[in-house]
């Protein structure tokens, strides 16, 4: 029986070649095809459409994210994104502790609404202790109180042509030629009508702090943090978002290319 033997020198040579190959995995070779709007990147990004369709097909529209006990609130909610908006409109509202705040609900609705914080607080409320998952990878558990978005939508009577909810916000992400670039985000109506999707005005038993989106932010517990618009100015029902801003349905989607569907 022929037995294959290998001497030490041959092995070390082979090992050396192997080791030398590792840095060759140098990954900048792929950078050119992965830039914003590069064709290859756009093809790969279609995987998000698959994820969206599969999750919508397999999972119930009413699926609830896990809720935790109060004892699992072990730290203040970590604020991120905008934490202290400086637009004049927002500063004016903040000065009077949001007494003059009105949530405008418009677009494809039968009944346009303009709701004060008191009116929102007088609607049936929902409180939930949930885990906030940031796209960066961290998680933080906090208690959120607010009114279910579905109740607001029902009151506004959404037209059948509406497919998405577009949030317009007070916080500026930077200046453009036409003025400050205000934050915006969109949700489909399944996410918007989930029982856990609330317009939150309270956090950890107090009023929602400015750093976490006062006076009103949305909670979408089945998706990542960037979908949960803070400092909400108005809610617009739309049939599509292709023509709005960069056309990808959100500030981060348009500027850095995060996936529109963030159920991951």
């Amino acid at each position, binding site marked *: 029986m022929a037995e294959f033997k290998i001497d030490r020198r041959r092995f070390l040579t082979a090992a050396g070649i*192997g080791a030398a190959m590792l840095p060759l995995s140098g990954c900048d070779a792929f*950078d050119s095809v992965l830039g914003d709007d590069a064709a290859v990147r756009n093809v790969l990004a279609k995987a998000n459409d698959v994820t969206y369709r599969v999750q919508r097909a397999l999972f119930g529209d009413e699926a609830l994210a896990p809720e935790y006990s109060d004892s699992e609130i072990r730290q203040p909610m970590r604020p991120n994104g905008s934490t202290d908006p400086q637009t004049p409109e927002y500063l004016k509202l903040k000065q009077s502790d949001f007494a003059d705040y009105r949530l405008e609900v418009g677009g494809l609705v039968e009944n346009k609404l303009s709701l004060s914080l008191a009116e929102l607080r007088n609607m049936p409320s929902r409180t939930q202790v949930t885990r906030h998952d940031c796209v960066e990878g961290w*998680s933080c558990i906090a208690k959120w109180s607010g009114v279910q978005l579905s109740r607001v939508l029902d009151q506004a009577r959404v037209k059948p042509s509406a497919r998405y909810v577009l949030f317009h916000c007070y916080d500026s992400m930077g200046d453009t030629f036409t003025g400050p670039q205000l934050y915006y985000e969109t949700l489909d109506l399944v996410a918007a009508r989930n029982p856990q999707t609330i317009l939150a005005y309270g956090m950890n038993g107090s009023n929602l702090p400015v750093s976490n989106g006062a006076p009103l932010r949305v909670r979408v517990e089945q998706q*990542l943090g960037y979908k949960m618009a803070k400092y909400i100015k108005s809610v617009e029902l739309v049939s599509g978002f292709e023509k709005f801003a960069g056309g990808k349905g959100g500030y981060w989607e348009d500027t850095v290319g995060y996936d529109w569907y963030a159920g991951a």
Partner: protein
Amino acid sequence: MTIEQDAVSTIPPKSKRLVYRQSGWTRVTHWIWAISIFFMVTSGLSIFNARPDLYIGQQSGFGFDNAILDINAEQEDNGRIVGVTTLFGHRFDTTGVLGASGDPANPDIRAFPAWATVPSFYDLATGRVVHFFFAWILVATMLVWWVASLFNGHLRRDIVPKTKDLANLPQDVADHARLRFHHTGSYNVLQKLAYAGVLVIVLPVIILTGLTMSPGVDASFPWLLDVFGGRQTARTIHFTCMVLIVLFFIVHILMVLAAGPFNELRSIITGWYRTDDKIEDGEARNG
């Protein structure tokens, strides 16, 4: 692709010791995995760089400490930037690779260095796009492999070690330590354990912990969080499995080089493998 081939009847007459060892299913899935795992690991490191810490539990400790790994950069009193990796409370200077890398005079502050990530520059969004695309490819290939390997017997015959194999373990370890390789129609026990470990344990666990990190999946399968001890523990396990896969890859490549890269590559490309046995001793492999 011809999945079943009669090995004996198709052996070329002049090379009688060539056996048909790898089925089409094994070969095609092998190369799809090779490509997708390369992109999964490199884009995964890109994603990790956005939050270069690993935690235990449901959440990330900001007001308390539940981190087991942290990769960061610090500035020393003399102005020098150093990469510091803290693992289970032990600090290591990892300047040049982890934390701070690239040009020593003007280092990049990033957990994993540019050469290890796709894309090489910091771009969380693109890292995620690449990661999830290849995640679908990997999962689809895994399903194909499982179905094929259950039906054609690859899993039972070639992968899962039998009692007889385990009895050979000491001898096999001794042979590997001496770099003495036996080329037969089937895998040796260390190979079986390595392949079973990756295919039956590590890859399924890395897929499941990946799903556990998805808030959309958690809403429908909250038991995943219980199985893996919370979302942040799942992320830590996901990362650990990646390290195991990289270690497997390094050993795998070294073994291929040591055992004869031409023969090994031929078998995983064409299916034909040259054995040490005479044909009447060697058991030719079908499918």
